[in-house]
């Protein structure tokens, strides 16, 4: 970014006037395009204050005297119809526990795979890479049966399933990074009397921090938004996540509860957008480091 600015300032001097005009045109054109990106989210907010019938039939209208319902939809989403907050809490528990577990276990695992040169570490590594190209539909039915048998169908145990199915990407990114870490640093720690465990936690782990943030962000985006895996694995009668309730209440219940759905989407999207604006730099970095050729 910084380089870009500098060189552009240089060339700006030569063709300043001409540039200024086209700059304004670009800004205007992109502002118009941006409306298409912002409007759908704004529409959710506007419709969350309307009656459920008017949402389906006239989604583009602003609320008027007949369609305005105040905070009724929010009340329905949280208190009466959807029990939305328990879904929100389930989603939070699952995402936080799974990401923490994935980061801890796969970073340790990647360290072992990189430092111990043996047939089993290699076999495991390639098997993990292989798992990255397998679509979920291939394993969904047996997986849901296996996890049922093992009792992994609650928000506190489903992180184990995420660790298993999500190991590939995380392991790949961690090993990629560790390949570039020189052995000398660890050898120095060893001479100072550190065993592998202390070396890993006090020397290697701090070096891995940027990759840990990137992997954490990618896994969070995946698990928070995941629909099918939790839908099939969790005991759906007791535990629903945010995507599950939102889909569930569009299901075959006669009339779709659009009002409650809109309100719950507003409650979900608002903190995400705020978090995104704060963490944008890290998120962009995470996306980029996930996009290395695999």
């Amino acid at each position, binding site marked *: 970014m910084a380089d*870009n600015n500098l060189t*552009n300032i240089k060339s700006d001097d030569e063709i300043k006037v001409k540039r200024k005009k*086209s*700059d304004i045109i*670009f800004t205007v054109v*992109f502002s118009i395009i*941006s409306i*298409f*990106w912002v409007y*759908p989210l704004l*529409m959710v907010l506007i419709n969350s204050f309307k009656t459920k019938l008017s949402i*389906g*039939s006239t*989604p*583009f209208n602003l609320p008027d005297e007949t369609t305005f319902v105040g905070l009724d939809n929010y009340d329905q989403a949280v208190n009466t119809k959807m029990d939305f907050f328990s879904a929100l809490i389930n989603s939070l528990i699952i995402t936080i526990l799974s990401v923490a577990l994935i980061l801890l*276990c*796969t970073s*340790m*695992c990647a360290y072992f795979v990189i*430092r*111990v040169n043996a047939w089993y570490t290699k076999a495991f590594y390639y098997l993990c890479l292989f*798992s990255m190209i*397998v*679509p979920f*539909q*291939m*394993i*969904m*039915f*047996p997986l849901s*049966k*296996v*996890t049922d048998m093992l009792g*992994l169908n609650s928000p506190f145990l489903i992180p*184990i399933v*995420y*660790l*298993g*199915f999500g*190991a590939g990407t995380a*392991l790949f990114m961690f090993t990629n990074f560790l390949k570039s870490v020189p052995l000398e640093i660890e050898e120095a720690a060893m001479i100072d009397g550190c065993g592998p465990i202390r070396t890993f936690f006090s020397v290697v782990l701090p070096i891995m921090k940027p990759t840990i943030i990137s992997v954490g962000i990618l896994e969070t985006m995946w698990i928070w*938004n*995941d*629909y*099918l895996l939790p839908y099939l694995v969790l005991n759906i009668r007791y535990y629903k996540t945010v*995507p599950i309730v*939102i*889909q569930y209440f569009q299901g075959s219940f006669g009339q779709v509860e659009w009002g409650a*759905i809109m309100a719950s*989407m507003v409650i*979900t999207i608002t903190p*995400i*957008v705020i978090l*995104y604006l704060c963490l944008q730099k890290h*998120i962009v970095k995470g*996306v*980029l480091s996930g*996009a*290395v*050729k695999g």
Partner: protein
Amino acid sequence: MEKIMKKNPGYFCLFLLPTLLAFMIGFVVPFGMGIYMSFCKFNTLKDLDWVGFENYSKIFMADEGEIVINSFWFTALFALVSTVAINVIAFMVAVLLTKNFGGTNIFRTIFFMPNLLGGVLLGTIWKILLNGILISFKETLTTSGINGFIGLLILMIWQQVGYMMIIYVAGLQGVSDDLKEAAKIDGADSKQILFRITIPLVMPSISMCTFLTLTNGFKLFDQNLTLTSGGLQHNSEMLALNIYNTFYSRVGWKGVGQAKAVLFFLLVGAIAIAQLKMTQSKEAD
């Protein structure tokens, strides 16, 4: 370090075993079972009945075959069209947003936003929007396959342009300005600079993004489920959703569903490997 870690199995148990066990539960065992079960008739795990290739032949028989083939072409066409559309738009947006005019950072922020929401929320939002428009033509997203196709296309463009744009912007920022400057002095116009210098240099980003959009297109599920749920008479049912419906909305078809899933895996795997091979050979040049 290696010697110590190899000698004492305790380190193996601490570092590798947790992930290995979870990987067994979450991937290896279900994968193996999945292959075996594709040759069986079953409803649960306890009534597995070996039937050989019967499930596979059922996929392509009569009415079922027609639905599957339609679903395949719908998916393939969608993956192709969406890959081209998303990448062309994302690349153009990235080229423009690496120029320095007011608000480029804000626009990048806005375009990326949909990626934070996930398929179910996105599908729900666009179902309301698009049905709200189609209602004035007395149609919905499900009434015809074309409606479903275009709806999904709009949704996926809206979602993925921002994601791919970020990758392209990073690639474009890696192209040195000196090169472009030199070409300009040698008399190249901006079109030549774009096609002869910029595009060849961001080829790694281009192949990465095509890979991502193509596999995303083939594997699309959440958006398909929420936006059209397959449409009327399967008119916009993509492969992943077709497999899901074979499992969960029909009685006695689970074996066939699993057989479809195996073929689906082979298809997606073949595309991924072909794409990787192509990228590798290009980078070797």
